[in-house]
């Protein structure tokens, strides 16, 4: 923990989030290497050899670990390759996704087991992990919604905004802006992850600035903390917090 002074107050979840992000960066860096046709062919042959010897052995999982690639993604490579060989038309993405979600749809029983084993043993990728991530995000949105309701701040949520035809929608738009630590806030985005440089920049580009472009300044809550130096756009209208703010100033309706 001494190595992470800026996050020392954060919980284990923060560290897990950071780990997950780092692992994803690692996978992104090596992604191309595993997708050359030579690599795919060699993996597939090794898989075939492996299951030929013992179908019950964790062939695919061990292969993934050996070449340092996410098991779910390795399962996807082999599944694609397998379907290419066995089907007339190349498999569509949705078919592959569906099979990864429910391996019993895979025509080959051995492969189904191997894929299933990969999916349940993968801690960073795969449909189950995606679902967990999604659930965590949703849970924090619900949490945020409750906090807003508790503070009596009226808002429009994403679904309402989408119904109105907004093209980009933060989690919540405040119907009456508030000030947080002296900064005007029109919208709040909940991020159930650690705000590291890489993800924050991606979010800025894809989401936060787009929100600013439409709704003005706003607040991002990184529930698992963030790198303090990233909170540099406050004056430009993007405020970062690691929790729901306490210093909220609302518009007074009384006569001045």
């Amino acid at each position, binding site marked *: 923990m001494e190595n992470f002074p800026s996050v020392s107050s954060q919980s284990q979840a923060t560290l897990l989030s950071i780990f997950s992000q780092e692992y994803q960066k690692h996978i992104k860096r090596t992604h191309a290497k595993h997708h050359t046709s030579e690599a795919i062919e060699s993996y597939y042959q090794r898989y075939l050899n492996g299951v030929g010897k013992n179908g019950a052995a964790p062939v695919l999982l061990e292969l993934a670990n050996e070449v340092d690639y996410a098991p779910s993604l390795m399962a996807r490579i082999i599944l694609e390759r397998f379907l290419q060989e066995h089907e007339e038309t190349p498999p569509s993405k949705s078919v592959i996704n569906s099979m990864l979600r429910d391996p*019993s749809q895979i025509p080959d029983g051995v492969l189904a*087991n191997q894929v299933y084993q990969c999916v349940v043993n993968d801690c960073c990728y795969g449909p189950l*992990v995606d679902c967990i991530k999604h659930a965590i995000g949703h849970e924090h949105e619900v949490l945020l919604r409750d906090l807003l309701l508790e503070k009596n701040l009226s808002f429009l949520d994403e679904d309402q905004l989408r119904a*109105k035809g907004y*093209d*980009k929608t933060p989690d919540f738009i405040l119907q009456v802006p508030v000030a947080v630590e002296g900064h005007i806030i029109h919208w709040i985005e909940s991020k159930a992850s650690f705000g590291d440089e890489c993800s924050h920049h991606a979010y800025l580009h894809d989401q936060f600035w787009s929100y600013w*472009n*439409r709704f003005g300044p706003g607040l991002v809550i990184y529930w698992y903390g963030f790198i303090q130096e990233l909170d540099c756009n406050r004056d430009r209208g993007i405020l970062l917090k690691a929790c729901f703010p306490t210093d909220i100033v609302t518009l007074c309706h009384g006569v001045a």
Partner: protein
Amino acid sequence: MAAVLESLLREEVSVAAAVRWIARSAQSSEDDPGEAAALSPLRPLRKEFVPFLLNFLREQSSRVLPQGPPTPAKAPGSSAALPGRPGGPPRGSRGARSQLFPPTQLPSPAAEVPSARRGGRRRGPGPARERGGRGPAGLEEGAGGEGLPWAASRRPRGSGSPGSPSLARSDPPNLSNLEEFPPVGSVPLGPAGTKPSRRINPTPVSEERSLSKPKTCFTSPPINCVPSSQPSVLDTSPWGHGLPPGCRSLQEEREMLRKERSKQLQQSPTPACPTPESGSPLPSRIGNLTAEPADPAGVSSHRRLELVALIYSSCLAENLVPNLFLELFFILQLLTARRMVAVKDSDLEPSPGALDSLESPLFQSVHDCVFFAVQVLEHQFQVLSCLDKGTLKLLAENERLLCFSPALQGRLQAAYESSVAKVSLAMPPSAQAVSFQPETDNRANFSSDRAFHTFKKQRDVFYEVLREWEDHHEQPGWDFEKGLGSRIRAMMGQLSAACSHSHFVRLFQKQLLQMCQSPGGAGGPVLGEAPDVLSMLGADKLGRLRRLQERLVAPQSSGGPCPPPTFPGCQGFFRDFILSASSFQFNQHLMDSLSLKIRELNGLALPQPEPSDEDGESDVDWQGERRQFAVVLLSLRLLAKFLGFVAFLPYRGPEPPPTRELQDSILALRSQVPPALDVLALLQQGLRARRAVLTVPWLVEFLSLADHIVPMLDYYRSVFTLLLHLHRSLVLSKEGEGEMCFLNKLLLLAVLGWLFQIPTVPEDLFFLEEGQLEAFEVDTVASEHGLDGMPVVDQHLLYTCCPYIGELRKLLASWVSGSSARSGGFVRKITPTTTTSLGAQPPRTTQGLQAQLAQAFFHNQPPSLRRTVEFVAERIGSNCVKHIKATLVADLVRQAESLLQEQLVMQGQEGGDPAQLLESLCSQLCPHGAQALTQGREFCQKKSPGAVRALLPEETPAAVLSSAEHIAVGLATEKACAWLSANITALIRREVKAAVSRLLRAQGPEPAARGERRGCSRACEHHAPLPSHLISEIKDVLSLAAGPRDPEEGVSPEHLEQLLGQLGQMLQCRQFLCPPAEQHLAKCSVELASLLVADQIPVLGPPAQHQLDRGQARRLLHMLLSLWKDNFQVPVPLQLLLSPRNVGLLADTRPREWDLLLFLLRELVEKGLMGQTEIEACLGSLREAQWPGDFSEELATLFNLFLAEPHVPEPQLRACELVQPNRGTVLAQS
């Protein structure tokens, strides 16, 4: 011309008569016959007098050490090198320091004097030498004779026949050759290193401009721009160039003057200049020049200076000079002159007898300059008193002014104390985005999904570019085009559809208004200056101030009193964006949009006159009126500037056409192009409706960006002529009924004066149109009080529109700080306090007597009443439409939905062709739209009166209130009904269509389950474990079961039980649950069940029994069954229990245990979770899979066992299966 001045100086002609003579060509009855006689022969020269006077003063003052912004370093020994050149002192424009005074060998004394005379900033008839050196020869030809009467008045000299005046007018000489008189800021073309500021030459454009060099820029204030004084060999004639050739008498007279003068010079004693420094190098650093004290006792000739001051002031008062503020700047320069340039002793000394003539210099010392300046300032007190408080303070505290005219100082002090024209510091500008408005920005406003999404991206790219610009544009070396150009073009390239262009232009224009007009955007940027550190400091801290000034190496970016049009601050971004985008379509759409907005704002109903309101109420109202006016005016100016920029962009070039032929052909081409905006008509309308104060300022902005050809086009020439007439008519001293307010006039004078100095506006334009001036009479609607008569302009607005007026203050401040104003001085930012956005244009009723009555009703009411009523009507009308949408239309949509549902039930799931469905629905529902009008009327009737009542003062008389309410109701109803009757059918169609497609899309498993799913009981405190946590836990169990695992790894049965218990709690709470999570949990629970059945879950405990006992397994299965039955609200993929893969798990176990599976299947049927037949089907298909032989047998046995069990069909189950046949068989959707 000199003759006129001389006769004035001799008091043969009164100043008043002379000014009348100049301003009006016709003789007035007031004129003394003698005076008239003296002046009438000079008539042809009339229009040349003012330029002559201005040039004369510039020349005379040219020895005064420069004070103003363009202060050059003084070249050592320069003045010594130029003996006898009072007109060629160390003054020149910036940027030419090294070659200001090149040592010049003058060929002969005869050439000396004229060259000295040439030194001044010239206005007036130019010498013929500009035409490629034909100069002196030109003087010899043609008719002459204007000089005769002048000669007669001075000293009789008979010969010479009077020339024809028409000739004189038709062939005026041209001073516009910028080769010799280059404008300041341009690259010096010849050995003459300095750049004179522009002169005003009454030379017809059509005649000679084609040969003149381009004026590239002009930034210099006049006085410092004393031209090069590099004598041209060809030029031997001083100011007589304008005279028609053959004007011998004048020529001769000149010659004589010269001779006489040089005689005087030789006789003169030591000049009044106390610190002669001839030949000694002056320190080149600015800020080190100490001022010479000025003393009223040292003034050389009171009477003469008074007279010149009087005539000069009268010209100012009559608006005979092009730019009032330029002259004021000049005067303040004289006031703050530091010292006289040293000249040879003999040079200056006036001979006592020559004081009433032009022979001796007008300003012989600093004392003279100050005296003259103070004299003029006394005449200009009215204007001065309207300057901002800071300038007034500096003036009132000026010790010279106090010394020369304590009375004026007293008045200024009083004006300062009573002034409320405060200035405020600018706030740091920050960009604000244009907000997304669903009404205009959502999908319905785009032709296709693609266009919508493209625009979505474009909006983000636009702001990305904007942010990048904000970050980088001040960094040295950063280039807009290099940095952003390609990205902008790529973005513009995607705007294919016309509709997308209009969306983007709307965004662009809104952003432009928002950024460049907000307090932040207007302050610094509009003034065109970097934040002024000096203004933060007090003037008293002189030492610190100086040190600070010395540290500021870079000069401030002030453009002097006549800066060229620029795009300061954020405006630069928008200009560069347009340039980089270089998109024809974009420019066209932008022009359309700008024109529309300009028309809209220009026609906006602004405050109507308030009938004699003596109480404080009107003040409060006026504040608002002014603010609104300022917002509208500033918006208009900004929009017009950009319109001018884009409209003239294709024609803009650094130079006017090089030849007359080329120019003619361009003119022929251009004259057939219709103007981007009919500014002539708008100007005429504005003058008629007495709204010049609104129209002219933006028109000036528009014209300031015109190219060189524009002023020559007939259309625009008419515009300029009108503007010139207007300028002349704005006599500040005239007050009274029907006159424009003082500050309104001042604003117009300032902007017009500025316009006349723009490089692209021909120099001679101003003095040219004189002949027709009398004809100018605006056909105003007499009864109507226009904006012009209302005090809509205040100092804030004046300074915001004309930041260059602030140069006066800078000049004065630099005097205080004891240094040149070049490095700063006092400039504070003036920000408009007006930031409220423009309200929508109030609806106008044009028809019917009722409308007229309503207008009449408002006529005698305070304007706030009208605004209130219009506002209420506008809002209520708009709310009415929204209300109808939310009630009537929403009801119809609900009806449509139920009709559709019925139809779907009738026609089966597929429901037929959606288009047909929609048509039939619409034909049923649209007739109901007629109710909208009735309901709308009711709504307006109900809502409007209350709103009016709440907004009007309590004391409003009952009758007035009731009328106001009625009008509001009427207007609101009119607005709402007009919209509704035009759009209700389309609206219903659109909404129904959206509903139908929503419903058709949502077909399938989703809709039925939706209704009751959300929410737990109120008492719930949401303490159940989070869904993400449970998925994660179950995943761990699954991965343990799937392996690989260490031998000692496993889960305890208690943990499994606890896990399922938590799952139950969570499914009951549901607070944090979302459908995808629930679906995954359902699927995981089925997998868990399969593992239990196959006994594949490794259990912690003694190594011997790594398996669950039967009882535990059954208990867990029971828990799962009840979760499936009672808690899951998504379909549970139970058929997976019988998938080959999960059943295959059993194949691996030895001995195989089938009882749990059988138990589970029976329970499923029992609990109604799966149907008997469904299970049978699954089992049947299982047998088709390939299994080991013994396994197949066992499977068959199981099948038989299951079938053997008597199956009791439950009626509810059947019914349930019918209603929801898919339940339980639908795969989990993720």
